[in-house]
């Protein structure tokens, strides 16, 4: 499990962020003292730091500069300043990424994953399995027994979301929202079409009736 250190002086935000990261399979801690932040970070030795730009003792950019003298721990800057200039400045001080507040939580998660992946620190993604089938979302391949099925990006995303929420009702809006986060801006009709294709492909591979329609609510993988 990757350890993430939150450096954020607004306690309410830090706590919510910790809760959010923990519920998304990360180990997360936050600092409560803001003296010698750079030293504290190094002592803590996390896999990644979420660093707020405005802190009570020193500003984030200086902390980052100090940190970069002895460490290359990945850092994502969090800030309410959102000018292009701040972003460029932070990146030039050695930040790995930059997100402005208020951040969309799932976008934050995607950024964290992307940075960890880029730096090769990501735990190998858990293969999503259900009965006989295994989904490799990144490659868009569904394995059923010996058979390999090629899925489109949208189909893979739909299936992956259903697999992550087994035995739960997933609403159409949830699915659309998830697809939008992965840059597939589908509408109701497109979702219906994609859903039918997923079903057809599953049917071809002998997995019939695994996705149930809950009329007026959504879908469920049983």
């Amino acid at each position: 499990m990757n350890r993430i250190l939150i450096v954020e002086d607004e306690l309410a935000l830090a706590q919510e962020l910790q809760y959010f990261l923990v519920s998304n399979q990360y180990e997360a801690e936050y600092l409560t003292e803001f003296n010698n932040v750079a030293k504290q970070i190094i002592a803590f030795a996390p896999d990644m730091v979420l660093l707020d730009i405005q802190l009570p003792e020193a500003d984030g950019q200086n902390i980052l500069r100090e940190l970069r003298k002895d460490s290359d721990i990945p850092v994502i800057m969090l800030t309410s300043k959102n000018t292009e200039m701040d972003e460029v400045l932070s990146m030039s001080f050695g930040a790995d990424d930059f997100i402005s507040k208020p951040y969309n939580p799932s976008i934050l998660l995607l950024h964290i994953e992307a940075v960890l992946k880029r730096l090769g620190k990501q735990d190998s993604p858990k293969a999503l399995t259900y009965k006989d089938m295994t989904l490799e979302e990144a490659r868009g391949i569904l394995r059923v027994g010996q058979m390999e099925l090629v899925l489109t990006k949208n189909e893979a995303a739909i299936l992956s979301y259903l697999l992550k929420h087994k035995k739960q009702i997933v609403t159409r809006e949830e699915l659309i929202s998830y697809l939008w986060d992965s840059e597939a801006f589908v509408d109701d009709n497109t979702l219906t079409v994609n859903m039918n294709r997923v079903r057809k492909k599953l049917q071809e591979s002998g997995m019939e009736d695994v996705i149930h329609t809950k009329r007026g609510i959504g879908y469920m993988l049983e």
Partner: protein
Amino acid sequence: MTLRMFIKQKMGVLCAAASYLLMVRLFGYACKIRTDFLIFVSVVPLLLLLVFLGVEYYRKHRFYKELFAILEPLDQKYLITEMELAPTGEEEKIWMDILYQVGKSMREHLNETEDAMRELREYIELWIHEIKIPIAALQLMNYNGNTDLKKQKVQLDRLYHFVEQILFYARADAPEKDYLLTDSNLKQVIHQVLQENKTLLIGNHVRVERNHLDVSVVTDSKWLAFMLGQIVNNCVKYKADDRNPEIVFTARQEEEKTVLWIRDNGIGIREADLGRVFEKSFTGENGRKQTTSTGMGLYICKQLCNKLGHTLSVRSEPGVYTEVCIEFGRNRFIEM
């Protein structure tokens, strides 16, 4: 003007007169000219000069006395040029004229500032009323223990939208440049905007179409994202009730520029209002039907576009569509 000041000012003339007298004396001695004639050519011009100076002094003295008499009790000193004052000398006329022009430009400047202040105050007041709505909604939800997160999210997004708007309003009016022109990919910026407005767009079942967006333009991506956010919000705000809303983004690269069209199938804008949509606080016919129009979104977009050097325009057919068009120039300087 005191006598001493006047004499000091006329010192040159007095010196010239003195040297004239001296020369007449020397010339008289040298040429043995008759003394009574010498006295005549010395005294007469001298007397004439004194009379002229005396008259000039009297007029100047009176003018400045009058000027100070008016200036002293005046509350707003810069209004002095508006007073009935007849300058006597040519020099005074020039100075009064200069003073008048200086005062006029100052008053114009003052008026502009006062107008801007008043507009800002009006906008802030309007803005506060607007932002109170989502706050009130959240307050009620909190009180009722409403746990419908989706509804809360809609209100949060509205709060965020308004806060962004006032931030960019401040930026649009500020003279300093806090933007950065870089190569930005239109697709990436639009994706970001769509994701930011996800709740609004999905909630309103908006169909989004994207055509040829994989082009890069020279812009400040943050500013562009804000502008597109305003435009997308307008698309939803002014959607037609009888059909599913859709937004079509289309980009085309031309020789000297890249053009981005954002077209919706909403209620459109009346022709009479079309020319005025970029005016400050203009809400038009549609704004009167909608209570949440501040008339600021497109105004701010226009200001930002002007700063960035983009061209912003709108076309529409009432009841059919509205199409916003942004033209990005090619900046060769940056390309190099």
